[in-house]
């Protein structure tokens, strides 16, 4: 991923070959990440942001990114915090200590989902083969993150650049999601 919000954080898995590599479209597996589910009431937000190093977004469906950090709004009391794979322990500890007495829940979900990076001119078209969200830039600007449904699988879509999306699904759904994306992209190669 060349441009984009989280290019230092979400990177193609160097070991994996591309799932799809066409002129206008590529699908790459993303490298592992630290993912934490953070739940708390509003009063904890400031301290949480300070501890994490990036403020937690309060605007629905938005994200905040910083140096090797991203915080994604998932719900009014739910954020997904992203950090490099090897920082799981440290982020966890920083958060726990920074939050002090605020009631909260911090849960490791690093491995619950896999991510792929979908980019290219036809990325929106491809997403729309299975997702009913309007991905025009007005309706879904760069930085927007949303959980939704891709055909019969729940997914999360995060627009990190105009033509680049991070798509996450629970691990056991990823074959289905990436498989269908690759299959649907085939027609773009038709004469």
């Amino acid at each position, binding site marked *: 991923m060349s441009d984009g919000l989280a290019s230092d954080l979400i990177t193609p898995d160097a070991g994996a070959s591309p799932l799809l590599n066409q002129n206008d479209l590529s699908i790459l597996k993303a490298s*592992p990440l630290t993912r934490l*589910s953070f*739940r*708390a*009431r509003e009063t904890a937000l400031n301290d949480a942001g300070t501890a994490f190093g990036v403020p937690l977004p309060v605007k629905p469906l938005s994200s905040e990114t910083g140096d090797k950090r991203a915080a994604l709004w998932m719900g009014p*009391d*739910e954020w997904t915090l992203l950090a490099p794979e090897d920082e799981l322990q440290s982020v966890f500890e920083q958060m726990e200590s920074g939050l002090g007495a605020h*009631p*909260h*829940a*911090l*849960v*490791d*979900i*690093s*491995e*619950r*989902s896999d991510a792929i990076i979908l980019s290219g001119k036809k990325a929106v*078209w491809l997403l*729309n*083969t*299975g*997702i*009913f*969200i*309007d991905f*025009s830039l007005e*309706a879904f600007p760069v930085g927007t993150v949303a959980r939704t449904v891709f*055909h*019969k*699988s729940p997914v999360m879509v995060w627009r990190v650049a105009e033509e680049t999306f991070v798509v996450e699904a*629970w*691990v*056991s*759904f990823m*074959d*289905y999601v990436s*498989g*269908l994306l690759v*299959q*649907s992209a*085939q*027609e773009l*190669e*038709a*004469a």
Partner: protein
Amino acid sequence: MSQPFRTEKGGRIDRSQQLTFTFDGEEMQGHQGDTLASALLANGVHLVGRSFKYHRPRGILTAGSEEPNALVGVYRNGDQTPNLRATQVELYQGLEAISQNRFPSLGFDVGAVNDRLSMFFPAGFYYKTFMWPKSFWDKVYEPVIRAAAGLGKPPKNPDHDHYGNLYAHCDVLVAGSGPAGLAAALAAAETGAKVLLCDEQAEFGGSLLTEANATIDGKAPADWVADAVAKLQAMDNVTLLSRTTAFGYFAHNYIALVERVTEHLPTPDPKLPRERLWQVRAKEVVIAAGSIERPMVFPENDRPGILLAEAGRTYLNRYGVKVGHKVVVATACDTAWQAAFDLADHGVEVAAIVEMRETPPESLMSIAKARGIRVEAGCIVTGTLGRKRIKSALLGRLMTSGQVASGGQVDCDALLMSGGWTPTVSLYSQSRGKVVWDADKGAYVPGKSVQKERSVGAAKGLYGLQATLEDGYAAGEEAAKAATGKSATITYATATGGEAGDGGTLGALPHDRNASRVKAFVDYQNDVTAKDVKLAVREGMQSIEHIKRYTTTGMATDQGRLSNMNALQIASGALERPMTDVGLTTFRLPYTPTTFGVFAGVARGDFFDPVRKTPSHDWVVDNGGVFEDVGQWKRTWYFPKNGEDMHAAVARECKTVRDSVGLFDASTLGKIEVVGPDSAEFLERMYTNPWKKLAPGRCRYGLLLNDAGFITDDGVIGRLAEDRFHVTTTTGGAPSVFATMEDYLQTEWPDLDVWITSTTEQYAVAAVQGPKAREVIAPFIEGVDLSNDAFPHMSVREATFCGVPCRLFRISFTGELGFEINVPRRHGKMMWETLAKEIEKHSGTTYGTETMHVLRAEKGYIIVGQDTDGTVTPQDAGMTWAIGKKKFDFVGKRGLERPDLVADNRKQFVGLLTKDPKVKLEEGAQITTAETPATGTPAEGHVTSSYYSPALDRSIALAVVKNGHALDGKTLYVPMPEGSIPVEVTGTVFYDKEGARINV
């Protein structure tokens, strides 16, 4: 001679491209740009099908998607697709089409005997007969009726094509691209709104492709269309979809379109989908679907060679085909005159214009006169002659008395007719709008919009080219404004010619023929005649809905688009009630028949439903394991070795676990992390059990009820810290338990400081069970003293497995010493492979769900969903111990107190042992007190689980039995077809009753 009915020049076909096709095996020629219908007509072929009931010869009636007669099968890749309309099938090189519903051939069809016997087959005849002798219905009558029914033959082979799907959003969706639709799209696009324009036809332009007698902005209509389309194509904010039918209008402006991507191509690229479903959420919709010409209902109005007038004109002007050499035009309205004029201008002999109106407009009369066309005003057609093609038309003169006098006979080889126009209100009606009767227009037109939608042009009964264009532009502007708030200065195109016409008729025409003999068709495909409609009324059917269902009018594949208005008028006449009182049947989706594959889309094979696999999956495949489907999961069922069958494999697995050790993949179990200061309080309220005193590091079995008091799920819950619990659920129950917890949390107890997170897929779980379990895991675990004292049964610890952090549970669903290791999912494969290798050293085994079931049954542990079925309470299940009696409340507590949940005679969970240890009961078998109960005897209960127990070397079973807890030692019976099986009621624990083996 090839294509004897092709005009010299003109039309939109590409004459330079000659195409060869076959119809019923006969080779013919056509051109690129033809439809199958136009090509057949060019070859002089009118007879293309047989009708549904009477097998009457039928020809091509229309030039559009409303065609009821010319249905054909088209072959591709060795299989045929039935019931395609020749009028919509685009010609390509090598197209193979066949006619349908005839035997042995189209020309000679034995089914045509039905036509001779038709006097015995009036509407609804089958309700009145075929009842005696009773046994004949299944064996004789019904099979014959069925064989006679149906149109084409279904495809024989699985469909090798694939289908696409696309979700789209737009500001303005325009359905239909005639003058109204194009103008609307142009206007809306000009404002910058996102526009999607679709038309079911191969080319945009609608009626403009037929119109030869008008200009728009000084151009020929077709040229204006080309320019307009080019302009739209160049705009980024416009999506143009030809061959795309808007077939469904759903709630909240959700429109379904089907795009036919490859059907018109001789050799499509297999990468392309055959068809694509578009699901469009439109802010505003413009329905520009045009109108449909109405047939006239006169005797024998169904002969091949009889077409709608505008269709005749379309074949001529658009496809360069003359429908005949000598044509009669029968009409009640102005527009058909133009067809006569156009034909005459192309050198076709117009034998007569038979005009129903006494005084047709002078302007038309003079044009006819100028061309020397005979006009019979105040005249109608009262019948036709010719067997497989019309030979002549019988004329009748309308008299003031209402009678009809014979008006002679005119020879012809084609007849064009027009009863006027019916606005296409299908999509509007689908949007749940109510049509209103417009007496001036003699038509139902759209009433108030109930969704964000507007109908324009002919679709709302507005005719005349200039007016249509204006209406379209205005609607496009308004729609864009409503959708985006934006507007622009739009220049409207101006038109000359194409004036709105007048006239029209509805219902059956009078005639001087023998009424009991002749048939005047209302619904062509279903062979419904005017007489049928009247008969229905005579029999007491007063609602149009009854008439429809009794006669089947409007139920054919054109869904009454041609027939409804005529049928309604005939019904109204017979009922002596105004049409508006009779009502209208409901327009439903799809607008035209739509391929199942389009709806199914990509959901097929492995993509039918996600296949959820656990990290051991590949290893299991490599090692010959057999899977079972549990919800979307693939779980290993058993591991046959050396040709074992399931029974042998399971027996070996069971024995090995009890003797040494077994490894089981428990990754699919639901996992929920409950975190926050109020965690214990929350679980206290959700589960029947008490949680507050559970110490960190310890686990407890949890039982979940619904508020009605019945068991819905269970699982082990470990306390990781004061404010953190690791909850497990059944595999199938995971989503609903999570949803239920969220529900109570968010809506009943929002004040609790606790949050739940699904961690089902965060962890891979390996269960290691058996006396040697500790030895097996010990080499890999660090950070925990595994000894029984330090880490007793029902404990949990954070540790590492091969250096990977893990949650280690000491729990058992087998009754043996057992551990469950949760590692982050990514390491699941490593864990599995490590342990699989390790257990081999201890002569252990991997085992699947079946062995797990047997082992737990030997211990009397329930499986929710198998031993319970939503009607079982904790008391019934013998699990009162799991209820925290001192608790103020928990989900289900109050439900449990209801009268029938505490009544006697409830079915209770017990063990059963067959008197003969070799006999294994069938799961689901019923239990009775009598050895040979009379049929209808209520069962005392049923067998919920039953297995051969290797540990006991005998069969065991679990069951629910009325008052079972009091029946210990009693004999009951399981009556089977082969004889009754005596069983003894026992406790539910069969093996290691003291539970010593788990505490080692």
